[in-house]
């Protein structure tokens, strides 16, 4: 959901009219009845035909894009790196498309950062999935006939989602170790009471993202990690490199050496997987290890994920809505940086390069 | 007064002074300074005695004596007023509200 009732009110407060696809809120437990002053349209296409600004969660289907009025705005997580076709189509139709993945990670833009807010959701959910699927207790538990030692959880990739996964696993009671290539994450991991796995490889990139590793580095990392992996009861991987396929960190061999009954949750499954053998959207047994590749994780927690996402979109666009009219400001670095296509052009240099355009 | 008795009094007074305030919180540093300033205002008593025994014929003695008493009285009176005003803020702390 890209709007929730509270946010709808805010748009209306700015003088905008809100058009909503019928039943769009139902999966997120917002029945149409909770949007009192909204115009309902029967399909996504119909919505697009009426709107000057189109909000979406995932990139719209081709026919939906085709229905968007030329010159109007499209805003959402448009997966800009994945499809040359879509980028072309958006440019051709003269749509001003903003892909929130491209949002510059500067302080002011944090309240619009959908990757962060959805990352938080994903991290929390992955920790729960791991706990739920583990054949063991996460916390230590002394009971009448003995004591159960706490489970060991290893989190790989300590971005927003990874940190949240650490915090959640710790809360449930597990002993958590974590690993990331960026060295500054060590302190962050420790600030959550978890232990950092030291592999001696650093891959600090720019802008809070990581760079890709060399082969030699990968080998070293793999070797040291393999030991930590073999010892853990649950493994949660969240490593990602923007614009790239997710790094393959955990090999089939490492998985094979895990304890019987261990659980792997690969948050990066959809973008290729950090773990060899993950299948996005499925749970597969690799030997006696359960490898889970959850898909579309935020949809597992639709109420709050929607609320967060809707607020991010609102914070992004609201400065440019004045009395119900749009007034974009191309000098604004946040908005300019997030723009994928405008006036028939693919605007974003990084995406251009990746897509080879 | 016999010398040694005075020495004992000096010594014990010093101990007493030191110990009596050894656990004072910062917030009382200034008021306590002011309060002890008031206490040594008792110099007024000494000044009165010397002025009282000054030669009424000798203007130098009278002037010095007058100055001594004047200053002593000012020390005592001013010290009291200022301390009292500072400490008025501590009417039992806000302990009663909170209950502790």
């Amino acid at each position, binding site marked *: 959901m890209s709007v929730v009732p509270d946010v709808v009110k805010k748009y209306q407060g700015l003088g905008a009219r809100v058009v909503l696809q019928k039943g769009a809120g139902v999966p997120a437990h917002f029945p149409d009845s909770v949007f009192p002053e909204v115009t309902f349209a029967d399909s996504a296409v119909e919505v697009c035909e009426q709107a000057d600004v189109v909000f979406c969660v995932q990139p719209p289907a081709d026919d939906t894009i085709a229905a968007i009025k030329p010159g109007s705005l499209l805003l959402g997580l448009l997966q800009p790196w994945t499809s040359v076709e879509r980028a072309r189509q958006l440019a051709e139709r003269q749509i001003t498309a903003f892909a929130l993945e491209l949002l510059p990670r500067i302080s002011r833009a944090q309240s619009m950062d959908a990757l962060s807010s959805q990352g938080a959701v994903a991290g929390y959910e992955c920790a729960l999935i791991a706990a739920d699927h583990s054949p063991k207790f996460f916390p230590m538990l002394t009971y009448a006939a003995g004591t159960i030692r706490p489970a060991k959880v290893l989190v790989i990739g300590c971005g927003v989602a990874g940190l949240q996964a650490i915090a959640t696993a710790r809360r449930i009671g597990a002993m958590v170790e974590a690993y990331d290539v960026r060295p500054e994450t060590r302190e962050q991991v420790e600030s959550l009471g978890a232990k950092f796995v030291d592999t001696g490889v650093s891959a600090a990139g720019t802008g809070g993202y990581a760079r890709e590793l060399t082969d030699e580095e990968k080998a070293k990392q793999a070797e040291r990690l393999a030991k930590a992996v073999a010892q853990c009861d649950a493994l949660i991987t969240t490593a990602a490199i923007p614009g790239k396929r997710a790094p393959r960190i955990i090999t089939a061999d490492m998985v094979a050496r895990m304890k019987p009954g261990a659980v792997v949750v690969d948050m990066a499954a959809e973008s290729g997987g950090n773990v060899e053998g993950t299948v996005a959207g499925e749970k597969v047994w690799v030997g006696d290890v359960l490898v889970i590749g959850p898909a579309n994780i935020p949809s597992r927690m639709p109420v709050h994920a929607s609320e967060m996402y809707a607020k991010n979109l609102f914070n992004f666009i609201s400065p440019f809505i004045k009395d119900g009219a749009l007034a974009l400001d191309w000098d604004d670095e946040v908005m300019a940086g997030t723009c994928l296509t405008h006036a028939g052009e693919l605007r974003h240099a990084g995406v251009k390069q990746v897509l080879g355009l | 007064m016999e010398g040694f008795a005075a020495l004992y009094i000096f010594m014990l007074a010093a101990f007493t002074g030191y110990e009596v305030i050894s656990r004072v919180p910062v917030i009382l540093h200034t008021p306590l300074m002011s309060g002890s300033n008031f206490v040594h205002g008792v110099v007024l008593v000494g000044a009165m005695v010397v002025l009282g025994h*000054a030669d009424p014929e000798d203007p130098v003695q009278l002037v010095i004596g007058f100055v001594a008493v004047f*200053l002593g*009285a000012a020390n005592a009176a001013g010290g009291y*007023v200022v301390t009292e005003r500072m400490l008025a803020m501590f009417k039992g702390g806000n302990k009663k509200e909170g209950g502790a």
Partner: protein
Amino acid sequence: MANWFIQASYFVVAVVFILGLKAMSSPVTARKGIVWAGYAMVAATVVTFFTPGLGNVGLMVLAIVAGGAVAWWSGKTVKMTDMPQMVAIYNGMGGGAAAAIAALEFARGEIHDPVVATLAVLGALIGSVAFSGSCIAYAKLQGIMKNAFRLPQQNMVNIGLAALTALLGLAIVVSDQPSSTLIVLFFVLALALGAILTSPIGGADMPVVISLLNAFTGLAVGFEGYVLGNPALIVAGIVVGASGTLLTQLMAKAMNRPITNVIFTPISGAAAGGEGEAIEGTMKEFSALDAASVMRYASKVAIVPGYGMAVAGAQHKVWEMAQLLEEAGVEVVFAIHPVAGRMPGHMNVLLAEAGVPYDKIFDLEEINADFPQIDVALVIGANDVVNPVARTDKTSPIYGMPILNVDMAQNVIVVKRGKGAGYSGIENALFYKDNCRMLYGSAQDAIGQVITHVKALES
């Protein structure tokens, strides 16, 4: 009235003074203390009028009324913020009185015993220094004397002058009938010494100096008490001398300045503090004891945790402190900035771990308007999220980010380890504001110390 009655009265007065001082060293009884001491002082004065053979009573009454009235009136009307200089000047007057007593005794030529003469001279010297020194302190704090005045080779001059004065004092002691020139010269030099010692000292160190001069006056009074054979003066004077010395040490310690530094290498006025580059003002340090006192006597405290609290793992201590303050009747709330820490909900996780109930936790939108009504904002290891630059400086990387307006609170205390910047790596204008004090140390330790002091304030 019989002499023994006067003596007995003095004795009681001395006892009450001690009890009064004791009472004044705890916030709970402090008020009572000064009142008791006040009654004792009145009693001492009244009783003294009955001293056998007391003359010049008219003049005496005049002096008392004049001195008392002037001081009473000025003490009543002065602004609360000008109190320190009033304490200084009243103290100086006490020192002056002690010196005058010695002068008069010499003038009357009544002093013959070498021990008595030595103490008289010592009292006169110390009293004079306290007098002139306090006058300078007064002038500085009152703004009459603006600049710190520093001689070349100040320390040499101090020592030389002190030696010379001491020599003259010795001459007075040994000569059975000292000449009045000698006496006058001695007093002049003693007064000069006090002035010169105090002149170079800057405003920040003044409270320590005043406290020291206060102890001096106490000593002077004690010594003159011996000269006059009055044990009440001895006891009151020496008790103040000793307690004043301790107090001076405590104050110097609370400011992190050894007393010797205050006197011999004074920092004068505005030159103090951190680098502060483009940002104006200085960073002012605070001790854990100060922080504890300020919060303990506040009515509302807002705690603003940041990444540093997480790094230090100080959340349990912070909550313990908050509970202590609440027990003492202080209202405590937690203010969480949306991006405090390094992940969404970072602070929530930690505060939940420490057991902070949800209803004490407020987010930016809920609390920002309240800061002007908050007595103390305690910032623990947060930096960017309270940096006012985000409101003002368009070139700053954090410009436009909403911040917690802690700078609008009455007092701000920032707990951090040193001069480390936050995530965005920029200077924080908050730290240089007038109402902001830095409590340096890792959050865990610093808050631990604050807890100890808060507890001490209760007992």
